[in-house]
């Protein structure tokens, strides 16, 4: 049957919709696959830039279009082709497919340009997505003996401030009373009802998260970046639970200092490792600014594990003091070169704490791919600890 647009052809909308949607359908499927692959590589993707508490709540991810692979020959160093135009044997010109620019007199191109997608992802979405995907446990905020209180409504009284007069309730009383024979038809003081407030204790939902980083000479840039990536995702996970979350950054070598976030990740120290200085600093901040009874304290410590031998006793003491106040302490060993699997001075310190019944966990983080397993490990350990508590 021959047709033309000018003619009236009854179109079956369902049929046409199906036909039109095919390209778009496969396009969407492609984009879905791109997102899947972004998801798989998130830890690496967010390893750059200061993302932890910064204002930017989105990450931008440049992506290539996916390629469906076929067997192809290796690119030849020298390839031959056929062309058309006025040339003489021996003529030489620049290959437009390599220079990229299209010169005015240059020959027409040989290959298509490459298309890049720029995905913008909301960090909150990523986190929700990951938590569901990886079935990470949600933390339970610990409700300690808390002094924090709040006024809540509770019942009515015949006396009270005018601002708390409950008109509806008062009117009901009037109606009830008028039902009786010989009653006064207007409002009396007897009818008025006032809302009452009572003090109620609120669970502590504040949290202070300490990130303690070993910046001694033995920590490489890569180690620090690993630690940073881990810290980032940890803090995102904790944010899901706590309305107000404060992050504190402490770095130590043989001394310890508190830093702001941007400074924190640029710090590079030198010299030895004395973990107890870091623990002492954390203890100091806890006691100065927070009441462990009303505030959930978390400590995450990243180090390569090479604590000075002479510091053992002091570090143990410092850590025990923190553990007494904190909901959870975590130790992540970043030793990209060696995988000693926590068989280090600091590793043993945390292992002892765990053996003594402290809420703690340790993980050896060697590669960016492990960041997620590390986060999962800590959150599982923490939720177990919370259940036990």
């Amino acid at each position, binding site marked *: 049957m*021959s047709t033309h647009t*000018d003619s009236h052809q009854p179109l079956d909308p369902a049929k046409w919709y199906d*036909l039109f949607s095919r390209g778009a359908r*496969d396009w969407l499927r*492609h984009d879905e696959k791109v997102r899947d692959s972004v998801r798989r590589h998130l830890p690496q993707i967010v390893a750059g830039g200061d993302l932890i508490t910064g204002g930017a709540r989105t990450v931008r991810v440049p992506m290539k279009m996916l390629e469906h692979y076929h*067997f*192809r020959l*290796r690119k030849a160093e020298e390839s031959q082709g056929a062309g*058309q135009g006025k040339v003489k044997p021996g003529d030489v010109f620049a*290959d437009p497919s390599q220079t990229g620019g299209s010169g005015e007199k240059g020959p027409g191109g040989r290959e298509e340009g490459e298309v890049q997608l720029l995905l913008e992802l909301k960090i909150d979405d990523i986190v929700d997505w990951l938590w569901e995907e990886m079935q990470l446990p949600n933390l339970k905020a610990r409700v300690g003996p808390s002094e924090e209180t709040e006024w809540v409504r509770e019942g009515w009284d015949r006396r009270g401030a005018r601002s708390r007069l409950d008109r509806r309730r008062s009117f009901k009383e009037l109606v009830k009373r008028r039902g009786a024979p010989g009653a006064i038809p207007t409002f009396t003081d007897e009818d008025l009802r006032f809302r009452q407030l009572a003090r109620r204790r609120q669970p502590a939902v504040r949290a202070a998260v300490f990130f303690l980083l070993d910046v001694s000479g033995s920590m490489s840039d890569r180690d620090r970046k690993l630690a940073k990536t881990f810290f980032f995702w940890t803090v995102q996970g904790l944010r899901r639970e706590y309305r107000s979350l404060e992050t504190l950054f402490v770095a130590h070598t043989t001394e310890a200092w508190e830093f702001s976030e941007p400074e924190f990740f640029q710090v590079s120290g030198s010299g030895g490792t004395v973990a107890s200085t870091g623990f002492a600093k954390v203890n100091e901040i806890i006691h100065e600014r927070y009441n462990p009874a009303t505030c959930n304290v978390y400590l995450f410590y990243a180090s390569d594990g090479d604590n000075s031998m002479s510091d053992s006793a002091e570090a143990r003491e410092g850590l025990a003091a923190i553990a007494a106040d904190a909901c959870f302490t975590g130790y992540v060993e970043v030793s990209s070169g060696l995988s000693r699997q926590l068989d280090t001075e600091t590793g043993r310190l945390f292992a002892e704490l765990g053996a003594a019944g402290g809420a703690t966990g340790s993980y050896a983080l060697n590669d960016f791919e492990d960041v997620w397993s590390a986060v999962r490990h800590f959150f599982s350990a923490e939720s177990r600890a919370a259940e036990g508590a």
Partner: protein
Amino acid sequence: MSEAVWQDYVERIEALAARSGLSFHPVEFEAVPDSFMMEIAVYGLPVRMPHWSFGVRYIYQLIQRHMGHSRLFEVVFPGNPGHAYLASGNGLAENVLVTAHVLGHADFSRNNMLFQRCQAQVSEHIVEHAANHARQIQQAIETHGLQRVEAVLDAALALEQHIDIDQSLRRSRYPEFAEPAKALADDKFRKRFAALEPRAGAAGPEAKKRAPVPPHPERDLLWFVAQYAPEMESWERDIFLAVREESFYFYPVFATQIMNEGWASYWHARLLREADFIPQQAYVDAIKCHSDVVRPVAADSQVALGLNPYHLGFSMWEKIVEAQGLEAALAIRAQDDDFAFVRNHLTRELADELELFRYSARDGQIRVLEPDLAALHEVILAPKYNFGAPTVMAQHVRADGTLELVHDHSLDGRGLDLERSRKVLDYLQRLWRRPVLLTTVNQAGLVLELSAP
């Protein structure tokens, strides 16, 4: 333009084409929106199986269209009847041209032997078959889930060029047992030999020998995997065979592109010239459109590093008809494919006239090479060998089910792209469900074995 006017033109052009010596099955014309034209270009068939890789092509096609690089006037599917889709945005002149062009294609696909042979395998209803495959795959997605079906399509479509066109579409499995050794000729020497050594001649009841799988290196990977994968499920095999059937359909389109497009262009030009019933203005417009279609790539930039197959084919057919007559041209369109066509009919004179040249590209430099006709033929044809894919063959299946593939690097001139090959092995391994190995050579020409997992 009203429906009736164009309908009238179609009939008169058809009659004119038949009088001029073309023979074709009836063609059903349908006007469709541009977006649908674009999808046909992406999928190669009006309704085809879903796969994300088509989505990638679709995006590229969208970009191309937005940049105004490409415009599609028609797509035609051979068959009886043939289906031709015309862009509904075409004007009268364009549609007149396109109608003539489509009839050229219809004649070509009916009479060319390669088309005939493949069509005999695939049937004349590939459009319907492909739609049916799409439906089957949709059902498979509902039954087995998108992930599993996609894994099958990832592998099958990655191997879509790896078929053996010389074998039957409905090819049966290898004979299970090796053929018994041929009986020795009973000549004088044999008799004397048997007399000398009685035991050697005594033919006992010979045990049947199981034939190795495959008995020879196998190029038809889609078929081989579908038949011999140790643990493939039947619906997975069906998908492999569906992809293979579509490849059988695509092969002649691919292997006769220069001839076929040239032939259709030649005929639309000729039929337009002879169609005295077309108004003058429409004729002029149509000829303008024709010269856009068969324009050499080099028209804008003086020198192009590629050829327009329409232009090359069109010029060759004009020369052939001029020099050898229509009868000879009709015989050539029946017998040749692009390999024979280019080698036999792209002459020195024509190559010079069209200013074709060979070049070598190295380190960002293009160097124009000395004219050499045979070498020029080969450069034009090189991307067309083996359906445009490297020669990868199944060589052996080990006792534990491990599949050994081998790449014939001596034939292709160099080794495989290792990264891509690994990915293809990964796709394949998920279906073969045993290790898959591939032998090729690296940059230094040393033998290299890739494996998945």
